[in-house]
C-alpha cells in the first residue's frame, strides 16, 4: 500500500526470494538430522516427515507465486496483501506438519485456511467469486467447530493436550475403542473432510474453485488439500492409532465414494476449472485410500508411505494442469473447453505441457501419475485384506473412467477444428509461467521414469515419523 504501483513488482520479487531462502534451513536440518527434536514440552517436533512436507509446501507456494505475478498485475488486484495472505497460509501449513499438540495443530489449520477464505473472494466485483468465498467461509468455520468439538471431547476424556500423552492415556485406560473416542474421531474426520473435500463434504469445492482467482484455486486444490491430509495423517496415527479398525472402515467408505462420485460428475463438466475441481476431489479419494486401509491392517508405515508419495506427485502435476487451463482460457477467452478447438496448434509447447499433465493425472505410464497410482494400488492389494482388494477394484474402475475426461481435453485442443480463427491474437506465455511449466513437467517426468527418488521421500517420511 505504501509503494507506488510500479514498484509493486518488488513485493513479488521479495516474496519469491524469501520463500526460496526459507528452503535453506530445511536443507540444513535434513543434513544434520539424527533423531526427532522435540520442543515446547513435546508439542512441536522436527522429524523427516515434517521436513519433507515443509519442503513440498514451500515449493508449492513458490510456484503459486510465479503463477500469480502476471495474473495479479493484469487484473489490478491488491498485490502486497495477496502475497502476505498466501505467506500466512504457508506458515499455517508448515506449523501443521510439525505439531504434536491439539492447540498447535488447530491454530495451524486455522492459519492455513483463514487467509484462503479471503483470497477466494479476491475478485471483488465478481459475483461467482463472492458466492464461492461465502460458501467456503461458512463451511470452513463449520468444519473448524466440528474439529474443535472432537478435540474438546478428547481433552475431556484424558485431560491432556499433547498427542503422546493422550494416546498413552487412552491405551492405559483401555479407552481406545470407547464410544467417546469414536465420536471424537468421526468429528475430526468430518471436520478435516471439508478441508480435503471428500465426498459428503465436498459441495463447496467446485463453486469456490470456479470463483477464486486461478492461482488461488491452484493453491487451494494443492496446498490446502495437502495441509488437510497432513493434519489427518498426524491425528489418526498419533492420537487415534488404537482405534484404527473403526475409523479405517469409515475412511474406506468415504474414499470409495469420493473416487466414484468425483469422477462421474467430472465426466459431465465443460468448464475446465470445474472439471479440475471434481478431478481433484476424486484424486483425494486415491490419496485417502492407503491411510484407510492402513487403519484396518494396522500397518501405518505403509499407508503413510503411499499417501505421501501420491501427495507429492499429485501436487506438481495438478499445479501444471492449472497452469495449462490458465494459458488456454486466457487465449481462447472462453470457460468452455469444447470451444478450445485446435488451440494447441497455436502454441505447441503449451499443448504438449497440457497433454503431459492431463495424461499424468489419468495415470498413464511413464508419467508421474502412473507411479503414484501404482504405489496406491500396491498398498491396497498388498494389504491381503478383502476390503483393501475391493477398494483397489473400485479405484481401478475409476482410473479407467477418469481417462475419458482427461483425454477429452487433449483431443479437443489438438484435433478439433478451430471454431473461431483469430490470427492476430498472440498466445501469451510469460516467462514466470514458463518456469512453472518446465519445473512441474520435469518433476512429472522424473517421478515417472525414476520413481526411486519420490518413493525414497515417501519412505523416509513414513519411517522417520516422530511421536
Amino acid at each position, binding site marked *: *500500500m505504501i509503494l*507506488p*504501483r510500479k514498484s509493486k513488482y518488488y513485493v513479488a520479487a521479495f516474496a519469491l526470494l524469501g520463500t526460496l531462502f526459507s528452503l535453506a534451513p530445511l536443507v540444513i536440518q535434513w543434513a544434520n538430522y539424527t533423531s526427532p527434536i522435540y*520442543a*515446547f*514440552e513435546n*508439542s*512441536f517436533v522436527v522429524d523427516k516427515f515434517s521436513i519433507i512436507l515443509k519442503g513440498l509446501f514451500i515449493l508449492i507456494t513458490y510456484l503459486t507465486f510465479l503463477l500469480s505475478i502476471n495474473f495479479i498485475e493484469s487484473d*489490478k488486484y*491488491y498485490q502486497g*496483501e495477496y502475497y*502476505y*495472505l498466501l505467506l*500466512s*497460509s504457508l*506458515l*499455517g501449513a508448515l*506449523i501443521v506438519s510439525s505439531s504434536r*499438540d491439539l*492447540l*498447535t495443530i488447530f*491454530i*495451524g489449520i*486455522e*492459519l492455513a485456511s*483463514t*487467509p484462503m477464505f*479471503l*483470497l477466494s*473472494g*479476491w475478485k*471483488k*466485483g465478481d459475483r461467482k467469486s463472492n458466492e464461492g468465498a461465502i460458501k467456503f467461509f461458512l463451511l470452513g468455520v463449520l468444519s473448524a467447530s466440528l474439529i474443535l468439538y472432537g478435540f474438546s*471431547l478428547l481433552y*475431556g*476424556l484424558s485431560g491432556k493436550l499433547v498427542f503422546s500423552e493422550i494416546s498413552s492415556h487412552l491405551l492405559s485406560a483401555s479407552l481406545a475403542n*470407547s*464410544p*467417546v473416542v469414536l*465420536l471424537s474421531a468421526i468429528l475430526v474426520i468430518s471436520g478435516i473432510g471439508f478441508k480435503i473435500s471428500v465426498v459428503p463434504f465436498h459441495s463447496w469445492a467446485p463453486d469456490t474453485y470456479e470463483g477464486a482467482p486461478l492461482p488461488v484455486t491452484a493453491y487451494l486444490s494443492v496446498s490446502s488439500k495437502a495441509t488437510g491430509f497432513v493434519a489427518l495423517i498426524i491425528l489418526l496415527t498419533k492420537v487415534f492409532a488404537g482405534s484404527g479398525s473403526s475409523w479405517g472402515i469409515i475412511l474406506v467408505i468415504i474414499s470409495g465414494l469420493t473416487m466414484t462420485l468425483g469422477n462421474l460428475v467430472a465426466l459431465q463438466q465443460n468448464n475446465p476449472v470445474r472439471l479440475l475441481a471434481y478431478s481433484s476431489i476424486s484424486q483425494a479419494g486415491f490419496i485417502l485410500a492407503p491411510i484407510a486401509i492402513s487403519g484396518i491392517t494396522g500397518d501405518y508405515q505403509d499407508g503413510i508411505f503411499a499417501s505421501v508419495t501420491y501427495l507429492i506427485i499429485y501436487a506438481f502435476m495438478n499445479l501444471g494442469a492449472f497452469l495449462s487451463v490458465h494459458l488456454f482460457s486466457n487465449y481462447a477467452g472462453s470457460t468452455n473447453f469444447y470451444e478450445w478447438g485446435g488451440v494447441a496448434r497455436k502454441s505447441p509447447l503449451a499443448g504438449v505441457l497440457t497433454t503431459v499433465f492431463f495424461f499424468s493425472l489419468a495415470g498413464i505410464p511413464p508419467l508421474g501419475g502412473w507411479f503414484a497410482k501404482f504405489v496406491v494400488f500396491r498398498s491396497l492389494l498388498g494389504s491381503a485384506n478383502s476390503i483393501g482388494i475391493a477398494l483397489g477394484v473400485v479405484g481401478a474402475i475409476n482410473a479407467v473412467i477418469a481417462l475419458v475426461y482427461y483425454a477429452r481435453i487433449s483431443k479437443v485442443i489438438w484435433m478439433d477444428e478451430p471454431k473461431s480463427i483469430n490470427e492476430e491474437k498472440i498466445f501469451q506465455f510469460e516467462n514466470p509461467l514458463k518456469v512453472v511449466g518446465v519445473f512441474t513437467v520435469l518433476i512429472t517426468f522424473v517421478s515417472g521414469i525414476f520413481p526411486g527418488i519420490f518413493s525414497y521421500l515417501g519412505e523416509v517420511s513414513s519411517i522417520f515419523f516422530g511421536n
Partner: protein
Amino acid sequence: MEIFEIVTYFVLLLLVSTAVRVVTTSNVIHAAISLVFTLALTSVLFLLLSTEFVALVLVLVYIGAVIVLFLFGIMITRAPLGKNAELDNDKNKKLGAAIAGSIFFLFSYILVNGFDGEVIITSGSSTELLGEILLSRFVFPFELVSFVLLAALIGGITLARKDEALIDEDQV
C-alpha cells in the same frame, strides 16, 4: 449449598431457551440479541465454575466485540429489520430437526455413559496460573494466533474497502 444448585439449573434452562431462540426467530436483530443472552449466561456459568478470567474474556471479546460486529454487519447489509420469512430454508426443516435430534441423543448418550458423573469442582481461582502457563508452555500457539489475527485484519480491510482506492493509487 442448595441455592447454588438451583441457580445453576436455572441458568442451564435459560441458556437452552435463548439458544433455541437464536435459531428459530425470524428477525435478524432478535437472533443477535438472543445470542448476547446465550453468551452472557454461558459467562455466568463459567463464573459459577470459578473460571473468572475466561468468563470475563468471554464477555469482553464476544459481547463487546463479536456481537457488535454482527450488529454492524446487519446494519451495513441493511438486512430487513422485523420479521422476514425468507430466512428459513423450509425444505430442510424436518430433515434438519431429525438430524439435530439424533445428533443430540447420540452425543448425550455417549457423553453421559463415557464420563462418570462426578461432582464438578467449583472452587479455586486460577487467573495467575493461567497467565504464567500461557506465556511459558503455550507461548508458541500464543504467538501463532497473532498471525491469524493479523491475516484476518489485513485481508478483511482489503476485501471490505471500496475499490476507488485502487484508482486513486494509480494517479499518485
